[in-house]
């Protein structure tokens, strides 16, 4: 498990300032679970909002997509490796936001595969805080994109 998650984390295409996965706790063909801590010095807190930092909803979606959709997608295609460079593009999402996430908070993201067919992965996702409360939940889908040459 440790080797698998490390391999997947190494494959992620995000730079440091836009990587929202710290650790992958679980991965199997039906879903993924991982964590991320929003450090207080993340650049968007300065402006969202002025003097009232709160994690933007769009960042919560991105976090759920990176852990729940992209890491799971990379895991699912692990065994069908080709020479092609593969990435995953988010194509739709529908998310409810139930609680705010403040700077410094750690979150747990769990995803359950709804279907993975014709290169489209659709997942039910939820994010929980340290109290075990659901902060947001919904559905995220993405398409596998093959880039033959970099």
């Amino acid at each position, binding site marked *: 498990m440790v080797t698998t998650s490390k391999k997947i984390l190494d494959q992620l295409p995000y730079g440091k300032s836009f990587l929202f996965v710290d650790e992958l706790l679980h991965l199997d063909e039906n879903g993924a679970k991982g964590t991320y801590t929003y450090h207080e010095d993340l650049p968007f807190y300065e402006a969202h909002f002025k003097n009232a930092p709160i994690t933007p909803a769009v960042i919560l979606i991105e976090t759920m997509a990176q852990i729940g959709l992209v890491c799971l997608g990379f895991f699912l295609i692990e065994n069908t490796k080709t020479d092609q460079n593969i990435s995953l593009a988010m*194509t*739709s999402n529908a998310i409810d936001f139930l609680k705010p996430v403040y700077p410094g908070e750690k979150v747990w993201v769990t995803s359950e595969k709804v*279907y993975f*067919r*014709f*290169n*489209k992965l659709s997942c039910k996702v939820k994010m929980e805080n340290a109290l075990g409360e659901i902060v947001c939940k919904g559905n995220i*889908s*993405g*398409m596998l994109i093959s880039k033959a040459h970099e």
Partner: protein
Amino acid sequence: MDKTQIIKELAKIVTPYTEEKSALENIGEDTDFITDLKINSANLVDIVLDIEEKFNIAIDNDSMAKMLTVKATVEIIETKLNAG
């Protein structure tokens, strides 16, 4: 189920995925999902999954790759229905 009925069912299935109302009203064999109805590849997958459910058939990868026009899609649905 004849061709006209299949096309009628297809029109119902694609309705939530297109903003091209006039192309949808005039849907026929020559309608292309991508160029006429402006449906993207991600929504095309959902349409194929809806077709499987509606007609109670299984679509494989090769068939999916061909399902870009109403004509090709109707042919595949007819073939699968007859095989079943």
